[in-house]
């Protein structure tokens, strides 16, 4: 700000400052989870848009640059309106067309199936649009020191690239994954702005091909080894017995369990290898991401990501079990109380219980289905915390050079964006 007095001709030494990226673990996420869960049930699910917004506000605030928080400025109302728009413009027409196709041409008729296939393709083409627009919406709603983020450009090239990638992955047995993932990432990163300052993606997919080859051949070897061990187990039973004889049931069970164990172990190995590749990708993309005179440095590890995933799953299951236990208690209470409340002459106790069960069942199913999401905010905070803890911004940024974004914050990011806002946070 003081530079204006000295005039434009004077060259300054790099005047940037180091920005320290840290995660300040949010407190009270369990309380927030419970409160959101209760409001969601009492509003028949509609509160979800506001619940997600409050979670984002907490998560964004936990990300600190030089101790100062990022701010999420989106609202539940925006998410809700976006959902309504997409519901009317995308989901409802799709539903009407598929139902009409079935009614007119008959279930499983060729025409109805062709129409279904066309709908699937259209939806796949929309996925890229959705990802891009959701990113834009969230960047526009992300502030630091009052300066907004933005994602420029049109979503069409990204959507076409995304669709082509989905189409080509099976044809190339997956070998285009590192190349296409890098391309898609660079398409987004190169369009990201923080205020007036652009992000830049510098790098290519070359460094990812080594890890990808390890993953690809690792999966192949795992599959072959697991199959070979299973084959050996079965072979050894038959070898002891001689051909054409059935082994006793307890032996069969034991070997069945062994084979199950081998494949479970193989799956665990697979999870670890894919987490390891994911960590490599995150770190590589971080390294390629430049901002002013700084770039990111990622230190995520496969074991770290796998640990977060597994413990998050355990947390979600625990939350669900708590809800289900509570529900069972409530259901038992209904069964005990209801027959006592209704005069005995009106209906038989068995009928009353059947009625009560019929009335309570949809409610219990609704809550039970939601139960898995009870502690979702806690797990989201853990995932995001892990990422931020393993990302650093190295180099310097001249914050005084960053001016407010000139993009209209309300012009974009509404409508389609929010309803397709489908990923983790």
């Amino acid at each position, binding site marked *: 700000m003081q530079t204006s007095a000295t005039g434009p001709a004077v060259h300054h030494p790099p005047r940037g400052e180091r920005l320290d990226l840290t995660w300040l673990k949010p407190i009270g996420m369990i309380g927030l989870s419970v409160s959101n869960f209760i*409001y969601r049930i009492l509003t028949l699910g509609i509160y979800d848009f506001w619940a997600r917004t409050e979670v984002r506000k907490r998560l964004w605030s936990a990300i600190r640059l030089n101790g*100062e928080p990022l701010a999420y400025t989106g609202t539940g109302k925006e998410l809700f309106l976006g959902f309504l728009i997409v519901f009317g413009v995308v989901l409802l027409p799709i539903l009407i067309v598929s139902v009409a196709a079935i009614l007119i041409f008959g279930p499983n008729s060729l025409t109805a199936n062709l129409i279904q296939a066309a709908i699937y393709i259209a939806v796949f083409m929309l996925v890229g649009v959705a990802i891009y627009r959701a990113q834009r919406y969230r960047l526009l709603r992300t502030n630091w*020191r009052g300066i907004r983020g933005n994602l420029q450009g049109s979503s069409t090239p990204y959507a076409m690239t995304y669709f082509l990638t989905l189409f080509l992955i099976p044809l190339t047995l997956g070998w285009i994954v590192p190349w296409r993932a890098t391309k898609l990432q660079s398409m987004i990163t190169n369009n990201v702005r923080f205020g007036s300052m652009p992000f830049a993606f510098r790098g290519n997919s070359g460094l990812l091909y080594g890890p990808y080859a390890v993953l690809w051949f690792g999966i192949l070897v795992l599959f072959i080894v697991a199959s070979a061990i299973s084959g050996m187990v079965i072979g050894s039973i038959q070898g002891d017995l001689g051909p054409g004889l059935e082994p006793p049931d307890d032996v069969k069970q034991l070997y069945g369990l062994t084979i199950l164990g081998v494949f479970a172990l193989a799956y665990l190995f697979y999870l670890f290898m894919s987490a390891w590749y994911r960590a490599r990708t995150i770190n590589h993309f971080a390294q390629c991401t430049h901002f002013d005179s700084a770039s990111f440095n990622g230190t995520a590890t496969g074991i770290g990501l796998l640990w977060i995933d597994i413990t998050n799953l355990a947390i979600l299951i625990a939350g669900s079990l708590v809800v289900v236990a509570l529900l069972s208690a409530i259901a038992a209470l209904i069964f005990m109380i209801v027959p006592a409340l209704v005069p005995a002459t009106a209906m038989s106790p068995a009928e009353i219980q059947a009625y009560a069960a019929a009335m309570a069942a949809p409610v219990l199913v609704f809550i039970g289905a939601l139960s898995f999401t009870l502690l979702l905010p806690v797990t989201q905070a853990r995932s995001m915390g892990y990422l931020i803890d393993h990302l650093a911004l190295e180099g310097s940024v001249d914050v005084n050079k*960053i*001016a407010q974004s000139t993009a209209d914050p309300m012009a974009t990011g509404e409508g389609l964006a929010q309803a397709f806002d489908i990923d983790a946070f």
Partner: protein
Amino acid sequence: MHSDLFHQRFEARYTDGRTAGSRDVMVELTERGILIPQDGSAAPLIWPFGALATAEPLTDHAIDALVTYSYQPGATLFVPGPRFARALATLAPQLTASAERWRAASPWLWGAAATVAIGVFVWLAGLSPAHTIANMLPDKARTAMGRQVVKSMTDGRAVCRDDAGLKALEKLTGRLVAATHDGKAFNVVVIDWGLVNAFATPGENVVLTSGLLDAANGPDEVAGVLAHEMGHGLELHPETGLVRAMGLAAATELLMGGSGTLSNLGIVLLQLSYSRDAEGEADDHAIAILRDARISSKGFARFFERMSKTDGSAKRLGKGGLGGMLSSHPDTDERLAKVLRSGGYAATPALSEREWAALKSICRTSLPSAKAGHSE
């Protein structure tokens, strides 16, 4: 009020929203709002409590606060330490998490309560939205629905079409249809299926199984079953059931984002069982049709009684259709008595001995469906 909170001073960082640069300031809480001193001789800013927003709703756990002011977009004030956040929660209670949640949720809470109340009202008043929609369906749509359902029910099974049997079936159907006084032409199809069952399907169609013909002792029994199923058809019960099932399937499809639950309407109808009231209505129609057609209702009652009491055949009935009617409803005896009471008029057998014999062997000639030829 809150006088103890005023004139406290806090270290803070202020940004004007034009660049990402920030500067340290000492802010003060006053009766008029937050007072933010400006550089040099510029007058200090005052941000009134009523127009403030915080980056995250204020909670008891807050260790700092990021404040914005709606009339100065882009400008932010970051105040570290829990003391300021506590004071702000008292002076601007609308910024607390509980207040924000209640503000967002309360309209929807009322909406949800109203929805539940309307649902309970509709249920208590015996209104059926699905029935209303079924009533509004044009005949063409009902016919199309019926064609699809019959098609998916006969999928993989042979349709019986022995000439003499078809003639006998036509005669019986015609006699019953004439007695409905409704002018609606019913179309009855017999399929080669061991299950003892009969289904009313949309658009005035009835599907009978050969198992039912085998299990019947005489044409009057089949006439009673047919009249009962026609009663369902006249009341649009199959249409109503399908509309309800499709509504549910559409809802699930929307919620789950999946597709394909709607693809087999016939299976839906096979699983569908009607309410007690619906069965009563169908019985009333059956009684009236049989009386006007001068067919004894004793056959219907006999079949009804036999099927509901024989454990072995009850199992063969399956879940939906007639099976639903005969399943463990507590008022079976009552309904049986009603049918028996309706007798006492002059009646002739529903079909002659020869015609009945022809109907029983209607599956001697059948038209195998395209799929059956391959899979069975």
